[in-house]
């Protein structure tokens, strides 16, 4: 059912793994300067005075900028709560006070240190849960004056409150056979791409070109235009090869700082982050969470009621992530039939690093809590946890948390596939156990566009706004175009990652590239196909209904001898072009009037469903857990290119294992990161990887992406930590209630008395 007949290996892979590929930091322009930032000296302080005179006097310094030197503009996708350079206050350790452009990076760094900043130091507010208490000091005193998305339910330090309400959870809870309560705390983790971000800006007249390692070039373009008060058409953002993102390079961040420095210095300016800066950068972080859950169940497994309270750490600024509260609330329900629901979710400001859309934002942590909670419910009613899921997972026609009625979906099939792959129920040594978890994630339907043109040699070029951050644009798009045109995917090149080339695109976020841009490419290729058929009908003196496109030629059906090659048609000099966008699929309308803070997540378009199962081994003396074997069963609809989809699962599961066991940002009492580097922020390595088995449940999905596909990129880390947590609990006898479940925490759980 996969449309690639043979694996189509990513064309950009070889240059990336052999070191030939050029990334933003590899680029240099004649006369370029180097940028450094002066960061805040305190996580929370009022700025009394900034004096840049000593920095400006350093020989070799060509520009020093503060808030006084750029337009006084507030920006932010869902709440406009920040400036390029801090003005009245600093709100986290990474707030930028000034930017310096100098002849060398060392001079710029020296000058940054010479900027004098006088502060009135304020108490830091790192406790994002306590920040919503009455009387708590405010991170943003002027929050009411900010522009914001109308659907956000804001109040003080809470920038978004969302609820999912269905039926009467309180009275249903009172009538349940058993009631299980749990509380889980997830620490922050990081996106941690290998490439620290880099930006290079060059002006020509009143126009600027910015090369940037961003996942979202069009959002970056808008941000530069908005904050520097210039027309969008005067800003071009180009992304050379991108060295990973995982969501940490989403949203607009530093392109305008560097563009402003280049304008002031009248020279190209380059900024390259150190690893430390990368770790402290805004939106590099997955949000910390406190998750309280309560479920009423009957002994036959019926889930009669779910109550929940979730508190999420947004850090100092909102950015695009204002939807997190509602997304987390949906994950607090999960892909289950629950009769009555009352979940409240609060997205709170703190003086911590801003958190953002790290691969499936809010889902892995919430799912980790919910899936361990489900195992606790199973234990309370004396039922095998897999059986409880079998009885309660959603299927076609079931009703979702906010009233959505589901199309055909394969979550139950993913459960059976994962149990089968892992050998659920098999005899294991007494230091090993298998844990299972299920999860979901929506597809996002957004506008997207592409052009397809044919070249004189019979090859094609796809011109698109889509981004490639390992997300598969370079594989999925040529495959889809090739299928429409009877060509082979190797025949296509892609012109992309350049806002002056392709149409607007949301960027590599939300598992949306193939889902939306694939649709656009198919539409564009169809227009090319029509043109080819017209031209070939003339050439072959045949009726166009009798023609077909096969093997790089147009031929009379069943008569390969009567044909004309695409190269001959395209080489005639007649331009052969197509454009497309296609109709955006929309999530089903739901009534959901009882829900607060509706941002469109109350109904999931083409949900992607997942079951993960992990076999783990516990070293009882140390608390060290190793994942020995992993089974991942996914319903992502029809798979376009199996090798690309498998790659997403391998990478996602490894990211999920890291989040489960070792990846944790530690803060000091003021909210400064204690381990902002790759030595003590413990990513998993290849040597830690278990055997990972994958099975795709290809449910033909109406109202989905091209060919009945859904997204693929984010789900592979969603239930991973839940599956591992459930396995650990079987060995320890209790659930570890802190994420990540580090050796020390597992060991502590083994050595402290349970409730």
């Amino acid at each position, binding site marked *: 059912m996969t449309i690639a007949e043979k694996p189509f290996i990513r064309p950009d892979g070889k240059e990336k793994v052999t070191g030939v590929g050029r990334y933003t930091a590899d680029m240099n322009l004649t006369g370029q300067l180097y940028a450094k930032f002066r960061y805040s000296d305190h996580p929370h302080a009022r700025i009394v005075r900034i004096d840049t005179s000593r920095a400006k006097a350093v020989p070799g310094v060509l520009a020093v900028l503060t808030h006084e030197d750029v337009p006084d503009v507030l920006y932010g996708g869902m709440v406009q709560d920040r400036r390029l350079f801090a003005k009245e206050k600093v709100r986290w350790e990474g707030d930028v006070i000034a930017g310096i452009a100098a002849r*060398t990076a*060392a001079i710029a760094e020296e000058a940054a240190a010479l900027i004098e900043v006088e502060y009135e130091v304020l108490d830091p507010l790192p406790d994002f849960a306590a920040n919503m208490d009455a009387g708590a000091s405010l991170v943003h005193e002027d929050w009411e004056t900010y522009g914001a998305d109308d659907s956000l339910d804001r109040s003080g330090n809470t920038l978004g409150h969302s609820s999912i309400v269905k039926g009467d959870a309180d009275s249903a809870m009172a009538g349940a056979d058993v009631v299980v309560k749990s509380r889980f705390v997830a620490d922050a983790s990081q996106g941690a791409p290998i490439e620290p971000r880099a930006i290079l800006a060059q002006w020509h007249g009143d126009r600027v070109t910015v090369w940037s390692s961003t996942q979202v070039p069009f959002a970056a373009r808008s941000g530069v235009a908005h904050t520097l008060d210039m027309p969008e058409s005067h800003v071009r953002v180009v992304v050379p090869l991108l060295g990973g993102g995982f969501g940490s390079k989403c949203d607009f961040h530093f392109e305008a700082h560097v563009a402003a420095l280049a304008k002031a210095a009248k020279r190209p300016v380059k900024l390259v982050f*150190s*690893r*430390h800066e990368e770790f402290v950068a805004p939106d590099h972080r997955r949000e910390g969470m406190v998750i309280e859950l309560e479920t009423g169940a009957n002994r036959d497994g019926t889930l009669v009621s779910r109550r929940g309270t979730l508190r999420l750490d947004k850090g100092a600024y909102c950015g695009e992530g204002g939807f997190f509260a509602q997304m987390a609330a949906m994950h607090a329900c999960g892909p289950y039939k629950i009769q009555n629901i009352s979940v409240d979710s609060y997205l709170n400001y703190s003086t911590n690093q801003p958190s953002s859309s790290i691969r499936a934002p809010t889902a892995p942590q919430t799912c980790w809590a919910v899936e361990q909670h489900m195992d606790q419910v199973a234990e309370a009613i004396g039922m095998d946890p897999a059986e409880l899921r079998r009885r309660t997972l959603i299927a076609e026609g079931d009703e979702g948390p906010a009233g959505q009625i589901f199309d055909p979906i394969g979550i139950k099939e993913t459960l059976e596939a994962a149990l089968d792959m892992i050998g659920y129920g098999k005899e294991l040594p007494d230091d090993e156990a298998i844990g299972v978890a299920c999860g979901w994630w929506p597809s996002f339907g957004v506008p997207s566009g592409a052009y397809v043109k044919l070249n004189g040699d019979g090859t094609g070029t796809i011109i698109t706004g889509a981004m490639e951050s390992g997300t598969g644009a370079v594989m999925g798009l040529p495959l889809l175009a090739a299928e429409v045109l009877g060509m082979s995917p190797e025949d296509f090149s892609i012109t992309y990652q350049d806002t002056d080339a392709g149409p607007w695109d949301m960027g590599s976020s939300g598992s949306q590239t193939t889902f939306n841009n694939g649709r656009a490419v198919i539409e564009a290729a169809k227009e090319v196909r029509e043109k080819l058929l017209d031209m070939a009908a003339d050439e072959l003196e045949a009726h166009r209904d009798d023609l077909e496109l096969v093997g790089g030629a147009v031929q009379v059906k069943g008569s390969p001898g009567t044909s004309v090659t695409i190269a001959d048609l395209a080489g005639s000099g007649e331009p052969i072009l197509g454009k497309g966008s296609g109709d955006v699929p929309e999530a089903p309308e739901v009534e959901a009037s009882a829900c607060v803070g509706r941002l469109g997540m109350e109904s999931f378009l083409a949900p992607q469903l997942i079951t993960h199962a992990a076999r783990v*081994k516990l*070293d009882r*003396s*140390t608390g*060290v857990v*190793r994942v*020995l074997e992993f089974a991942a069963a996914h319903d992502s609809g029809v798979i376009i290119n199996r090798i690309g989809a498998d790659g997403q699962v391998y990478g996602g599961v490894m990211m999920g294992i890291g989040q489960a*066991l*070792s990846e944790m940002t*530690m803060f000091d009492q003021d909210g400064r990161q*204690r*381990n902002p*580097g*790759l*030595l*003590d922020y*413990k*990513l*998993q*390595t*290849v*040597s*830690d990887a278990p055997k990972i088995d994958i099975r795709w449940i290809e449910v033909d999905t109406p109202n989905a992406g091209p060919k009945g596909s859904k997204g693929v990129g984010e789900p592979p880390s969603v239930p991973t930590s839940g599956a591992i947590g459930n396995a650990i609990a079987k060995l320890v006898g209790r659930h570890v209630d802190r994420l990540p479940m*580090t*050796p*020390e925490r597992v*060991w*502590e759980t083994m050595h402290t008395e349970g409730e």
Partner: protein
Amino acid sequence: MMGATYTTASSVEDAVAAMAAGARPVAGGTDLVVGARQGKKPLPQALVGIHKIPGLDGIGESDGGLVLGALVTHSALVSHPIVRGRFTGLADASAIVGSHATRANGTIGGNLMNASPAMDTGAPLLCMGATVELAGPGGRRTIGLDELWAGPGQLSASADELLVSVNIPAPSPGTGSAYVRLQYRRQMEIAVVGAAAVVTLGGGAVMDARIAITALAPTIHRVPDAEAALVGGPPDEARVDAAAAAAAAAARPIGDVRASVEYRRAMAVVMARRAIMTAVARASGQDMAIPASDSTYGS
């Protein structure tokens, strides 16, 4: 950064002269460069490359012992049959230093002179009674490792002394060694807690024992109480437990991002016991996997 210099020494004398003039030696650069990029310590103003000095990259046998040139890499140590066979604890350690790239570039001389209390090769070499030869402007001298380390990142050697070789005496017949550390992942890791043991068996009894602890005190050091608890009888559970408990009792752990004081203290017992048991097994002729750390848990 103004005026930074880099020269390449072609002899020990060249290197020492450069060091006497203020240069810091660099070979693999796995501590110096990584530390500078992390912002731990800037690169020194003057560097002298010692990687081209002839004769410092050999592993030689001497009266049943070993002489390691300062430039011997961790990957060379791990793949050397005599190191694996009779100095197994050193192979355990070199096998898990950093990553593949660290082991291919990082040298034994650099590892020892970095004086980290968490270095992997230190504890097994200390237990093996290794000495180091230092070359300075006034000539050469040989000191024990216990004399070399003065604190975290601090040496008793002066800044113009270059480590040229490590000498490991021949082990007595019936000796086995092991190094084990607590690690949270299998590559790019640094010891959270570690322990090494060198055990000599004779007639079923422990004739001699050397036990050292890693990342549990300002310097790696041996624990005489633990050694005494193990010697004088069969390596049974009671004796091993007593030795491990004594090793842990000598620990003065710190709490940091890698572990709390309490956890480090508890893990000291576990790592010491595992190092001792593995060394005893090897002394009895059993073939135990290298590195011992990986076989102590997981697959």
